């Protein structure tokens, strides 16, 4: 059987995050088919898929954790959210803006905001669900993810985590500690 790779996700280190929101800006621009200055000049509404949140003294960017058994994908009545290629993807075209995903996401990682580019009618306010798609649309030719937020963070507080290599590093670190402890027995 083919081995299935676990999902990638964005990990943030709250001890390094300075709350500058560069990651929010970069994410919004990455999803605006434009650069910052043009977008602002043309009055394009910039919509980040992540959000830098302060709670007491801790600051942390929050975005989709790319859950394996994703509640949003389960709840979405139109199938706009789905698992594919190790990512919880979203097809904004199929989204009807019912906000069920917003309600079930345990991290508050989804919002529903209006899409001005959309040709709406009087029936709709053009609301679409927005969530981190790991910048899937920016995926490089070599199929490598290139996350705008990670690239923009001046303190390297956020990174794209491949759970396998992450675990490997974690194991090494833990092993080191265990070895230390063993010395004292």
């Amino acid at each position, binding site marked *: 059987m083919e081995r299935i790779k676990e999902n990638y996700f964005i990990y943030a280190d709250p001890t390094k995050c300075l*709350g*500058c929101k560069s990651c929010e800006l970069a994410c919004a621009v990455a999803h605006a088919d434009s650069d910052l200055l043009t977008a602002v000049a043309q009055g394009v509404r910039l919509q980040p898929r992540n959000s830098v*949140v302060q709670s007491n003294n801790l*600051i942390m960017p929050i975005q989709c954790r790319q859950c394996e058994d994703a509640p949003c994908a389960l709840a979405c009545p139109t199938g706009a959210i789905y698992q594919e290629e190790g990512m919880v993807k979203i097809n904004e075209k199929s989204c009807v803006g019912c906000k069920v995903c917003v309600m079930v996401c345990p991290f508050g990682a989804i919002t529903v905001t209006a899409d001005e580019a959309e040709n709406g009618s009087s029936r709709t306010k053009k609301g679409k669900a927005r969530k981190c798609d790991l910048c899937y649309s920016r995926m490089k030719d070599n199929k490598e993810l290139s996350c705008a937020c990670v690239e923009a963070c*001046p303190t390297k507080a956020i990174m794209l985590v491949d759970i396998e290599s992450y675990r490997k590093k974690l194991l090494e670190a833990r092993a080191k500690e265990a070895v230390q402890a063993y010395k004292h027995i």
Partner: protein
Amino acid sequence: MSNKRSVDPCVDQLVPIANKEGIETVWDRYEAMKPQCGFGQLGVCCRICWKGPCRIDPFGNGPQRGVCGADAHTIVARNLIRMIAAGAAAHSEHGRHVALTLLAAGEGHAPAYRIKDEQKLRSIAEKLNLEPAGKDLKQLAKEVALASLEDFSRQERTTPCSWAKETMTTERVDKLCKLRVMPHNIDAVVTEIMGRTHVGCDADAVNVMLGGLKGALADYTGMYLSTELSDVIFGTPEPVVTAANLGVLKENAVNIAVHGHNPLLSEIVCDVALKMNEEAKKAGAEDGINIVGICCTGNEVMMRRGIPLASNYLSQELAIITGAVDAMVVDVQCIMPSISKISECFHTEVITTLNENKITGATHIEFHEDTALDSAKKIVELAIDAFKRRDNSRVNIPSYKQTAITGFSAEAIISALSKLDANDPLKPLIDNIVNGNIQGIALFAGCNNPQTTQDNSFITIAKELAKNNVLILATGCGAGAFAKNGLMTQEATVAYAGDSLKAVLTAIGEAAGLNGPMPLVLHMGSCVDNTRAVKVAVAVADKLGVDLDKLPLVASAPEAMAEKAVAIGTWAVALGLPTHIGVVPQVLGSSVVAEFLTEKAKDLVGGYFIVETDPKKAAEKLIAVIKQRREGLGI
């Protein structure tokens, strides 16, 4: 919010009303701003040139130098001294305005203004070596104004500003001249800071900081002359009993709030309003016109006229939310642009008065010295008109107000002391410091900042110091905090002063005919008036024959926020005072700058900054410093 907004009960009463009506206040905007950018907080974001913005990663993973190669130390130092330049500019523009008005009064072009304190004019003329004897008042006013204006225009770089040189101890003047931080020309020093911090100029953080000290001393110069010349025109404050907090608004009066910093405008508005009382009554306001103050314009008219203070900086918006302010007349500095937006929800007229300071949505009435009376009249008419539109169902005046005894100019303090010893007024003060009845003197100054609970740090630290027999002086919105919260009363002295301090304050108060002690906190004026405290300190230092950095004096700005406060704090340090700040300043991104401010400055000038956000701990630190200084003096 982790913090409570304020210890002021009016805030608890009015903010829910604002929330209910969907009116945003400073606290909402502060919440919405979170998280605030850490690079900015650390001071490591540079926008000085157009290759930027550049920011330095304080964790060392990302970039350590801006595009031009400036490191965190250079960037932080440049940002800081630009703040000092802005503070110095703000204060000295105010000073220049007053000096020019004095000149116009001397030349007879400013009918609304006259020389109210002749004695002070003569003593200033003497200080500035102008040989006043036998000269007529107008001539003298002109000479003093011109000599003061020379502090803005002198090109001889080695001659220090007169207002700086003649108001410090000689030892201090020598020390500051040797360090090359003594200003020769206020304008030139502000310009110099802008020049030396341009891309590709002064990059040595310590040298940049010395430029900052010079800028701060230029600020001192501008402030000093501003206060003294205002006293000449409007009178030197004397103790007066008045009231503070929003309860001073009156339901049955045309309420005019004067807000900002400049007495040149507010004084005339007060004069004119007094004369237009009948018109207000005709419009249906039984109690006529009620003028209240906000921020330091408020402090100015409170000190000189006993006009009550409605609020200090952070609660200025709430004045409008009471629904009872008919006009808010603003001049310069610390005016939240939001007031014009909030006034749209009420009948309130927000009136700007200076062409350099307009707010979108406000009514602008141009104010000039020569036509001051006409403009003031127009302003009061607008207020009366607005009163007619007031919706009484939306009036919510909180019932909180506190008595406040204010008006302790240096002259007023010396005069109170002279009741104890007419020949040598400073002697009782010095004796009590030497024998330990008064352990030391603390000057509280500065703003409010929503990053702390409004007024709380002021009150907490002051009570703690008073208990330990430290004499407390206050200016600016700090003074506002004490006034609103009842610490400028005789009762507060009884309740909070340590035994020996209580005894001294009672002796002075009784002798001065107050039928009881002096108030716990002495109100020395607006934030531009901090030099009043220096005047007392320098007199004590001269008498003892020691410099300021030996005396048990401390300063504290526990809720600072303005560029002006950065400038004031820095000159307090340059004069030799340990100076506490209770909000973390935007300098921590550079160890060199932080060390300069808290350590190296001590070696150079004797003063230094103490950063402590916890008011209890701050009080402990200030008391420890006072003890240390006493030991140094062997008392």
